[in-house]
């Protein structure tokens, strides 16, 4: 780029020749800036890897640490006389919670997606979609509060669970996974060509049979990708686990006991519950492991998604010889078992067994029975949507009833206090607003610039593909890892300290991929004929983008920015390292410390006194109202643009 530019700078302009290349320095500079903002993703990724590597090196070079012990040890005791760092117990906690959440969440999500694509119809779809968007928009700290304050007591009453327990986190994370699983499965099933459904109907299949036996298998790779992405999300989830599952690492598969995950340990480091020294650098080593695991899962999922986009997924389903063989073996075994059982049971009540074991069915299924199955099936998949809706209603209802009493003018205008009845959240609200403004200032130009470069200027080179992959990977990094990075890079190396600046820069990095994806999507929606028309009348590349593409993509870009900011304002984990514990004053400049709404909710929820839980719920209400206002703005912009749009 730079070499090309200098060559052109020294080229003489020939006034006689009307087609001579005039150097437009401004335009070149703009393209370079756009290129730089896209390339920022590489710097960010490098910074994350540096952060994790540096901390891990500190950790593994410590005399108290032994790498074999780290990988195979079963005890995780970070403090005390004889610290022990065996990641197996953290891994088992992570597997218990993420696996448990997936076992509940994946079937629910896939079922809901089946209902949505195959049975809901236009109107019902328009009603259900917003519910799923609300589920996706609720910050994880709110889910965590709900897990600890509502789900956990129920489990304590009915299952003799401990105060902190894995099960409450599992249930809530399962619900948090739904939006991811539903939206990606839904996309995959919608992409199944209509003619496959038609040929199934033409063979006399019911809608249910078509959905289960044709649509679902044809969309299987997309469904698998959705589950993988859900798994990565569950593994990286931090706040719910920290609040509800506890902080004692132990090797257990009992969901009613306390347990700790990898992300939860990092969060413990952030909140200062861990003695400085090797226990803190252990957080970075755990972060590295967490990063690698989620990276692998996300890469796998991305590969599956790519196969769907290129259409090769239909070709993957090849011969299943191996499968069938084993299936036949199972079948023959089942038949022998059946014979034995029948021998034993004699002639008594064999029909019960017939339902349990696959028996040769020579008779055709009656239509009545097939419709009955359809009815049951639709009830089940529809039920999963009802379940999600009821869950959402209980969650919102619970928080409203808990927190409404704490809401009054003095709560909004006072400072936090050690006494719940005097506490207020004025500096916290201001902290969140400042944080959001700064994030907007940093993230919007960077993200939009990167997307404009990738979509309008970049050629399909290796470098561009690399950039795209890096941005995609950034989107999948667990938020707590961004926290580690912000701590090392901004707070320590740049010397910004635990300030608004460090916090907003960290959030910028977190929301960057969201803005890039949203912007690219709306740029792609601008028809190519606009660009061709602009070039056809002699516009330069930048003029084309500036006057013909960007204006038409603005509503979409604005919506994306607002939604990503609403994500930023609700995030807790990345700024847990940076935010203050107690806000005495309203921050007056960017180097001041701050406290944001989600971090304040976190600290009040972890207080033992129940009065603090009430004001935590009140703060959640404020946070949800802010999110509601922002999302309403985004919807209004989107709607107005749709009405105005003439293409």
């Amino acid at each position: 780029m730079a070499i090309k530019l200098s060559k052109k700078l020294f080229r003489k302009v020939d006034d006689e020749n009307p087609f001579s290349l005039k150097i437009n320095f401004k335009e070149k500079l703009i393209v370079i800036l756009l290129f730089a903002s896209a390339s920022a993703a590489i710097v960010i990724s490098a910074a994350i890897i540096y952060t994790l590597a540096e901390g891990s090196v500190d950790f593994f070079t410590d005399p108290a640490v032994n790498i074999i012990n780290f990988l195979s040890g079963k005890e995780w005791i970070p403090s005390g006389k004889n610290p022990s760092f065996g990641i197996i117990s953290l891994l088992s906690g992570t597997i218990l919670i993420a696996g448990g959440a997936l076992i509940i969440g994946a079937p629910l999500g896939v079922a809901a997606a089946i209902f949505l694509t195959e049975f809901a119809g236009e109107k019902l779809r328009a009603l259900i979609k917003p519910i799923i968007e609300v589920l996706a928009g609720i910050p994880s700290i709110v889910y965590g509060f709900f897990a600890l304050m509502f789900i956990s007591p129920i489990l304590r009453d009915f299952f003799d669970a401990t105060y902190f327990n894995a099960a409450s986190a599992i249930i809530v994370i399962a619900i948090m996974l739904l939006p991811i699983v539903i939206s990606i499965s839904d996309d995959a099933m919608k992409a199944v060509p209509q003619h496959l459904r038609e040929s199934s109907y033409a063979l006399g299949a019911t809608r249910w049979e078509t959905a289960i036996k044709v649509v679902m298998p044809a969309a299987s790779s997309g469904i698998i990708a959705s589950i993988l992405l859900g798994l990565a999300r569950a593994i990286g989830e931090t706040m719910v686990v920290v609040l509800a599952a506890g902080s004692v690492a132990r090797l257990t598969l009992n969901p009613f006991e306390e347990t700790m995950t990898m992300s939860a340990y990092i969060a413990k480091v952030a909140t200062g519950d861990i003695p400085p020294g090797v226990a803190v650098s252990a957080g970075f080593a755990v972060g590295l492991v967490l990063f690698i695991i989620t990276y692998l899962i996300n890469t796998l999922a991305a590969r599956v998604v790519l196969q769907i986009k290129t259409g090769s997924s239909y070709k993957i389903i090849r011969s299943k010889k191996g499968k069938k063989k084993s299936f036949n073996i199972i079948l023959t075994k089942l038949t022998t078992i059946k014979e034995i059982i029948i021998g034993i049971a004699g002639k008594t009540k064999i029909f019960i067994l017939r339902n349990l074991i696959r028996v040769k069915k020579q008779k055709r299924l009656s239509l009545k029975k097939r419709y009955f199955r359809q009815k049951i099936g639709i009830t089940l998949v529809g039920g999963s949507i009802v379940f999600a809706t009821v869950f959402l209603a209980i969650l919102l209802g619970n928080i409203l009833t808990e927190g409404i009493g704490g809401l009054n003018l003095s709560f909004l205008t006072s400072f936090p206090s050690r006494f719940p009845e005097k506490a207020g959240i004025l500096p916290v609200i201001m902290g969140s607003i400042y944080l959001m403004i700064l994030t907007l200032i940093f993230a919007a130009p960077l993200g939009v610039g990167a997307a404009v470069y990738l979509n309008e200027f970049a050629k399909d080179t290796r470098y561009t593909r690399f950039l795209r992959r890096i941005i995609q990977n950034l989107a999948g990094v667990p938020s707590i890892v961004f926290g580690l990075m912000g701590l090392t890079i901004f707070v320590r190396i740049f010397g910004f300290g635990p300030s608004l600046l460090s916090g907003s820069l960290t959030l910028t990095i977190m929301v960057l991929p969201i803005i890039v994806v949203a912007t690219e999507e709306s740029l792609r929606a601008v028809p190519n004929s606009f660009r061709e028309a602009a070039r056809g009348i002699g516009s330069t590349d930048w003029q084309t983008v500036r006057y013909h593409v960007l204006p038409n993509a603005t509503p979409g870009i604005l919506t994306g920015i607002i939604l990503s900011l609403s994500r930023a304002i609700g995030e807790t984990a990345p700024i847990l390292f940076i935010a203050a514990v107690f806000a005495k004053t309203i921050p007056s400049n960017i180097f001041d410390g701050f406290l944001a709404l989600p971090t304040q909710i976190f600290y009040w929820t972890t207080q033992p006194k129940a009065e603090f839980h009430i004001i935590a719920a009140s703060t959640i209400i404020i946070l949800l109202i802010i999110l509601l206002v922002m999302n309403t703005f985004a919807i209004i912009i989107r709607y107005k643009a749709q009405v105005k749009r003439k293409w």
Partner: protein
Amino acid sequence: MSSSKKTQNPEPIKIKKVDVFYGSNHAIIDVSMDIKQKSVTAFIGPSGCGKSTLLRCFNRMNDEIIGCRTEGEIIWNNINILDKKVDPVPLRRRVGMVFQKPNPFPKSIYDNIAYGPRIQGVNDRKTLDSIVRKCLKDAALFEEVGDRLDESAMDLSGGQQQRLCIARALAIEPEIILMDEPCSALDPIATAKIEDLIDKLKKKYTVIIVTHNMQQAARVSDYTGFFYLGKLIEFGETKQIFEKPVEKLTENYMTGRFG
């Protein structure tokens, strides 16, 4: 022609004053005709004349299109199959359909054919094996793919895929087979194979075929209906339609005087 077997043939399928609307678009206008069973009837006409729409009435596929409305009667075995009280699911089991583009399911060859019987509860492997074998033979595909039934149907050639779709339709043991331009996506060799197959099928089945290709209609069908702008212009024995059309419009179309 099949006139010699008249005694064993059941009543013809009676189409009485059928109208089809897509929203405000009147796609089929007052069509009445009798379709003889165990013979091949071709619907011909220019694009958009409604021939496919009428074909899709026979297995109520138009029900799947939002905003599509059908009036009139199609009487088959004394039942009006357009009646709202007739459930399209069991109807479609007796009316197979082959689509314009070969559309096998992304499953193995075996599973494609076994799909229809399976949804009706046939689970026994031996029964399924014999159904698959028989249908592949009937669709003249067994020799080509008999040794690789476990392979994906997506790996077959276009002509093989289309014959697989015919075999899949045969597996549900239909009485009527609808073919919506079954050869339009195929090369001449594959087309010849399908046409041979249609000729064999009419011994057991009532075949209704929509085609753009007039030579094909002349080659494979016993009766031909010519449609224009949603109306049935002329209907009769294929020989008569092609050699001595009554209507001027039909003659113009046959001789290529309009497209």
